[in-house]
């Protein structure tokens, strides 16, 4: 009746979402009074897996092999389900990343488990897990419990605190699982130009909407983003206009994000957009229309011409950094 966390790595590196998931799994196991197991799949990850000790893992079960160098749903789901069975997992946690969202349902199907996707809070009530997850892109949320089956839960990145690493390195134990004949393979990976952090993982996002007026004007947002370490997002209006790629869209038919800081620039705040960013910790709106709905959810707003305000903000940050650098 244990809790199993499947920690995600890519190219041998464990990601922050993995640290968040391990930390939350440890907390949950403690509350349930259940043993915690942590597992990882990959090749050449035995060394890096020890770092999960900092987040509450005492031991990491590692499924190693060339078959796990690249992520493939079928093989990974088979291996993950096998590990879950061996440790008698009643609860399986993964990060709700592109990998976790693909893998979790396949593991749940193999285990006869229920799926609770994209959780933003987990609690133990009456001795059982109660998960909170957004629905209608964040316009509402549901609290969900098991109806008697084991649960596979995915945790939204950036929501659960990973904290600073504290514990000693974890022991690493190799686990052998039977190979799974795969009928799919990765034939290529194209890295998006200049983009290493995804919107869903970003801690600061600067989004531009219809008020940007055209694709060329996003330059001022990119400059601001560079100064403050942000990723640039977009509203549906600007994506549908062809100004920005679909992968940049925040909102109901785009991405749902929860950064520490969200700057909405020239975005009026349609209900579908607000749904996708309202769980951001701090929201700033810059818009020339004081009646724009975005100001209702913003913590701080500036009413004004974005073409004046944004460059001024970039300049102010740059000066502050220079002053701090000199001090």
């Amino acid at each position, binding site marked *: 009746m244990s809790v199993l966390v499947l920690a995600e790595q890519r190219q041998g590196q464990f990601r922050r979402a993995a640290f968040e998931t391990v930390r939350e799994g440890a907390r949950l196991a403690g509350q349930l009074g259940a043993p915690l197991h942590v597992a990882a799949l990959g090749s050449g990850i035995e060394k890096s897996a020890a770092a999960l000790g900092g987040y509450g893992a005492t031991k990491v079960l590692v499924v190693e092999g060339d078959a796990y160098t690249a992520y493939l749903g079928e093989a990974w789901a088979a291996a993950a389900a096998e590990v879950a069975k061996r440790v008698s997992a009643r609860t399986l946690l993964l990060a709700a990343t592109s*990998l976790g969202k693909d893998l979790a349902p396949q593991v749940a199907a193999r285990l006869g488990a*229920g799926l609770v996707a994209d959780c933003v809070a987990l609690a133990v009530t009456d001795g059982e897990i109660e998960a909170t997850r957004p629905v209608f892109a964040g316009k509402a949320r549901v609290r969900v419990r098991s109806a008697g089956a084991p649960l596979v839960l995915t945790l939204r990145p950036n929501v659960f605190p990973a904290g600073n690493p504290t514990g000693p390195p974890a022991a690493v134990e190799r686990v052998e699982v039977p190979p799974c004949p795969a009928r799919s393979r990765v034939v290529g990976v194209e890295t998006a130009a200049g983009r290493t952090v995804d919107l869903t993982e970003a801690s600061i996002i600067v989004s531009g909407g219809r008020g940007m007026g055209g694709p060329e004007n996003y330059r001022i947002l990119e400059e601001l983003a560079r100064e403050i370490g942000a990723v640039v997002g977009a509203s549906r209006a600007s994506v549908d206009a062809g100004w920005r790629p*679909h992968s940049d869209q925040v909102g109901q038919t785009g991405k749902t994000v929860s950064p*520490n800081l969200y700057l909405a620039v020239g975005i009026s705040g349609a209900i579908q957009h607000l749904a996708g960013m309202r769980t951001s910790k701090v929201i700033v709106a810059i818009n020339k229309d004081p009646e724009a709905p975005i100001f209702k959810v913003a913590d701080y707003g500036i*009413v004004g011409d974005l073409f004046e305000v944004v460059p001024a*903000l970039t300049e102010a940050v740059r000066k502050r950094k220079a002053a701090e650098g000199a001090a």
Partner: protein
Amino acid sequence: MKLVACVKRVPATDTRVRVAADGVSLDPQGVEWIVSPYDEFAVEEAIRIREKLAGSELVVVSLGPAEAAKEIRTCLAMGADRGVLLEDRAAYARDVSSVAEALAGAIREIGPDLALFGRQSVDSDSAGVGPFVAALLGWPVLTFVRKLELGDGLVRGHREIEGATEVVEARLPAVVTAEKGLNEPRYPSLKGIMAAKKKPVDIRPAPPLAPRTRVVALELPPVRPPGKVVGKGKEAVPELLRLLREEAKAL
């Protein structure tokens, strides 16, 4: 080639959510219903394949209340050949596994080469049904696909992952889930709407499956405390920066 596209009847994306008296479901009063937008990408892609490959057939499958026949007709008007409605008055009380098991049963019976889904429904947002069905069928799945190519017994998909696009190839039969950007769904033509009236829709009861999860409450998100307008124009920038650094500690 035989194709299945699975669609869900969902509230329109501009719906204001109100909680029903039962405390666990959406109050349907005044709600407008549509085909879930991501499912439209799946249907459009399937129609394009069917148009390209002579002798193909596209079956649209939906699990929903009797009213979901309307959304199936919309897909038939776009160009699908026939529909299957797995009828369940309590469809919206189902969870991912109980939807996936019902759909997997219907797909197994139809026996397509390719089953397409939207990446997620825009009401329950789990993004789980497509890959769950694939695992039940024992088929490979390509999720979040923005570009799709068919080869000799193969499907190749470009899928977005964090910071990169991954190209994955799978042997048929396979499951694909559609991401925005895959295509631009067509509007049904008048001719299509007329033709859809004559296309068959097989309505049958959905297998009663016990959900593995239960919703104990549907609630509105916590209201954000009212914010403040810092000021007007670029003169307000220094104060905004101070607040972000000292008060919000966000920079």
